[in-house]
Every structure is written in structure tokens, then in C-alpha cells.
């Protein structure tokens, strides 16, 4: 039986609480994610998927509720400890990939590994390992502005993996990709599962949530879980 890697208990996230522009982005959400699962959060834009990923990914703290990630109760932690935890356990693939312009693919992939204090040799090994797995090793020396959309996407995934996290969070990863590249991405995610990674994907793309690799779909609307099932 796989272990629970994420547990969220009745979490609420309110932005600008008490202000006229108050937003209740996540409301009373409880869920758990098991090791090795690929969970898709499905819902329309503005439903709160990204905020939920931010909360579970230790990017921000909930207004109330409890979150346990990798066995750690992170809810009351300071930002510094959340950062330390995030850099070790969580990798992110952003909607716009958010790579740093004018740096090469290699340099972009190393960014999360820099504060880890790895030796140059170790960092180099890791970059080449993931670049090879994701088939961008021949493009490492190129600035990212010279790469194709698919290569940029794979560089962004390699960056999320270079610190060897157990959890990968992907926010609308196919939003800017055509069908062919989206299918390639699904294949990559499928491979990651083989490496023991747990994936949480926020998406409203049927190519993603309709794929066989997804273990579970959690429907999200107006900050609430509407339905959760395989």
C-alpha cells in the first residue's frame, strides 16, 4: 500500500481577508495524495487550482487548515523553512515555463541546484542525467530563446527534476503547447512515474486529464472539490 505523501485537512485560503476585494480562492478542501500517483486537478480558469497547487507546494500558507507533505506538518512553518523544504522535496513546472532568458538550457536547468551547495561535478551529473532522459542533452549549450517549444518544455521539466524532488507540480503544462507536444509531455510524465515521482497537475486540457497515466482526477470549482475519482 503506497504511503500518503500529501494530506490536506480542511484548508482555506482567503486573499485580502476583510477587504472589499476579498477572494476566497480555496474553501474547505481536504484531500490526500499517495506516493507515485499522478493526480490531475481539473477545473475552469479561476477555479482555484493554481492556488491549491501553491498551498500544497509550500509556496504560500493557508488561512486555516492543516497540510502535511512528506510527513511534515508545514502549515505553521516560516517562509524560510518552507523554502528549504520546497527546494528539497518539490519541483515545479510552470504554465509559461518561466525559464530565465538569455541563459543556456544547461544554466537554466542548474538554477534550483545552485543553492543546494552541490559540487560542480555533482551538479553537472544531475543536469546531464535529466537532460538525457528528457532528450535535450544535445541542446544544453543553446540559449533558451533558440530552442523550440517542445525543447523549452523539456528544459523546464529537467529544471524541476534536477534537485531530485519526490513531488512534481505542474500548472497547466500544456497551455501553450500544440497536440503533438502535449502528447509528448504526457509521455514524459509517464516516464517520471517510473522514476518514482508523484505528480500533481492542474489542468483543464482533456489531453492531460483524459490520458491513461492519470491515476485520479479531482474536479475543482469555485475553490471547492466538486468530485474526486479515478
Amino acid at each position, binding site marked *: 500500500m503506497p504511503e500518503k505523501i500529501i494530506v490536506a485537512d480542511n484548508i482555506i485560503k482567503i486573499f485580502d481577508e476583510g477587504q472589499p476585494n476579498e477572494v476566497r480562492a480555496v474553501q474547505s478542501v481536504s484531500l490526500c495524495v499517495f506516493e507515485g500517483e499522478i493526480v490531475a486537478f481539473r477545473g475552469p480558469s479561476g477555479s482555484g487550482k493554481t492556488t491549491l497547487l501553491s498551498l500544497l507546494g509550500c509556496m504560500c500558507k493557508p488561512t486555516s487548515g492543516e497540510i502535511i507533505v512528506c510527513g511534515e506538518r508545514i502549515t505553521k512553518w516560516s517562509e524560510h523553512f518552507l523554502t528549504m523544504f520546497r527546494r528539497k522535496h518539490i519541483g*515545479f513546472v*510552470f504554465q509559461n515555463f518561466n525559464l530565465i532568458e*538569455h541563459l543556456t538550457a544547461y544554466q537554466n536547468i542548474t*538554477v534550483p541546484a*545552485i543553492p543546494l551547495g*552541490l559540487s560542480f561535478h555533482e551538479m553537472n551529473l544531475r543536469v546531464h542525467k535529466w537532460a538525457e532522459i528528457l532528450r535535450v542533452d544535445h541542446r544544453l549549450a543553446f540559449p533558451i530563446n533558440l530552442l523550440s517549444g517542445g525543447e523549452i518544455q523539456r528544459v523546464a521539466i529537467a529544471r524541476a527534476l534536477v534537485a531530485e524532488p519526490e513531488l512534481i507540480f505542474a500548472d497547466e503544462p500544456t497551455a501553450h503547447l500544440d497536440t503533438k507536444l502535449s502528447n509528448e509531455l504526457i509521455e514524459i510524465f509517464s516516464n517520471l512515474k517510473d522514476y518514482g515521482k508523484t505528480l500533481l497537475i492542474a489542468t483543464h486540457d482533456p489531453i492531460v486529464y483524459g490520458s491513461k497515466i492519470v491515476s485520479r482526477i479531482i474536479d475543482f470549482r469555485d475553490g471547492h472539490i466538486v468530485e474526486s475519482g479515478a
Partner: protein
Amino acid sequence: MSRWINILGFTALLLKRYWRSTLSLIVVYSIIVFAFASVLMFIQSLSYESGIVLRSLPDVWVQRVIGGRLVPIDNDVTAGLAKIRGVSCVHQRVWGYYFDEGTGGVFTIVGSDSIPDGLTMLAGKGLTSFDTAGVAVCGTGYLELHGVSIGSDIIFTDTERHLRTLRITGVFTSSSDLITRDLIVVPYGEARRLLGIGNTSSTDIAIDVTNPDEVETVVRKISQRIPNVRVVTREQLISTYQSLFGYRGSLFLFGLMISLLAFVILAWQKAGGLSSKEQREIGIQKAVGWSIPDIMIQKFCEGTIISFNATLLGLIAAYCHVFFFGAPLLKPFLVGWSVVFPGFHLLSHLELSSIVLVFFLSVIPYLAATVVPSWKAAISDPAEIMHA
């Protein structure tokens, strides 16, 4: 340690990425530091050098003042001065300024029967007690202005409009050209004729005091015993020179400080108004696991690389400008204008405190101007990048 090295390497990458703008920033920054450090080094060297030269002057000299003007002092006073307890030596000096109508230059004529203390000959021979008239030892300024050399005859007009022909027997040099450039040393009799000072008086009377601690006592006694005189001490003169150089330098430094301040404000505005791209990059770094201290270390390294290199470049350029090339950009403003412009070579003298001061005024404000706004960006919520 590896973390620091990795961050430093990453910083270098980021700077290399925009190497043109980084380089132009360093160049502008260096120019400001260069100007600031040049003035500082120039003033310091000049003060140091004038201090060395002025140390060869007598301890005290006495001048006669009537109606606020300096007039020749009677030689009779000499005997009275010699009797004052603590005075070791008294000698009459004949010197003054000579306006050269042909070139418009003003030269200092000094009467002597030997080469004054502290001055050395570059070429030729000096004066002796056997030289009573018709010879002169000149500074390089006179020779260059008139295109003459040792052995040439030069013509002066005395105060009664008679022409006097002198032969150049020697040329001066000294540890500094600062005081010999416009100097012409002639025998006493010749100096009296050219300056219109009679045989019974002198320009001033120089006094050496046995014990330096008694200079003030001697000065007080002279002032009490002899009316209508001004008593000047060597320390007063040194202090006046230092103040003069300090005053001119301060004016300059004040202007440069404003430039430096303007630069810091510019840097602050640039950094404070971090472009959306820079803010986004900080957001990405935070989102992928960089902590606030990591980002601060990176920005600190970035600021240090730029400001340290610019300061170092500015300092080296200033050192070459002042000590190798003789500060051609500053001399006209800080030494003054003259037909016989002092062509002295500055002694290489630089205090550690000045280097520290330049670094303190340059590196610290720049670091503050770049690190603080970056810190403001770094404390922003990393989740924002998820919505970007």
C-alpha cells in the same frame, strides 16, 4: 562554501549575459571614482610634498609691516634679534618678485652667496661668496620660457630702468620642482639692484631657534621688543599651505561628492524600479527553491563585482593620472594659473586611509542602492510567479 561558489558563478553568468550594459556601468562608475580619487591623491601628495619642501625653511622669519604692507626691514634689527635667548642664528634675506615684461611671467629673485638649503643643482655650478654680480642660477621655468641654457646671457631691468646682463651658471632641481620652477638666485648685490632694496635693509630676517619647543616663546619676545613687524613661523606657513590645498581640494571634492551622490541615486532608481523582467527572475528563483538569503547573496555578489571592479579601475587610473602623468587634468584648477606654470612631478604618496575612504564612499552606497531594492523584491510571495 559550495553554495557561495555556485551563487557567485551564477552571478557572473547573469552579468555576462548583459555584458554591454554591465561594462558601460563599470566605465561610468570608474570615471566618477577616478575623478574623486585623483583629487584626493593629488591633494594628499601636494600637501605631503609641500611639507617636505617647507621643512628646509628657517624656524621663524621677521618682516616689517607698515600700513598693512610689507616693506624692507632695517638690518639694524638683526643685532637685537640675535641677543634673544634661544635664537641660534639670524640672517638677512633679500628676495622679491620680478615681472618679466617680455614673457609676462613673474619670477622669484633670491639673493644669496650659496645654494639655499634643500635645493640641488641639476646642471652647471651654484653661486659662491666670490660671485658678486653678473651671474644667476635659474629654475627650469625661466630657461624654458626664454629658450636659454647654461652659459646664456639674460637681461633684467632694475628698479631704476637700467638693464642688467647676467650669465646663467647653473640650473636648479630639487626634491620638488614646486618651488624652484620660477626661481632665480643671484648674488646679494644683484638682487638688491633688481628689487630696489638698499644695502641697509633686507626683505626679511630669518631666524633659527635652538629648541623647536621655544619657537613660540621667541616669537612672543620678538613681537614685544620690535614694533611694526610680522613674525611668521614655519609651522604657520606649512599649515597655511595645507589649508590652501585642502580648501581647493575640498571645493573639488564637494562637487565630486554631488556627482557620486547623483550616481548612487541613479543606481537606486534603477535598482528600486527593478524591471518586470528582473522581478520575474527573482520570483522564478524563489519559486524553484532560492531562499531570501540566497538571493541577497547573489545581489550582494553582483553589486560587489561591479562596484569593486569599478572602484579598483578608478583608483588605478587615478594613480597613473596623478603620479605617472602628473595630474594634467587637475593642475590648472588646484595649483593655480601662471605663465611659469610649475611643472613639478608629484611624489608618489598615498595613505591607506584614502584608499579605504574611496572604497567606503564608493562600494557601500552602491551595494546599498542595489541590494536593498532587490531585498524588497525577494520578500515578495513566491506564489505570485505561479500566476505570472
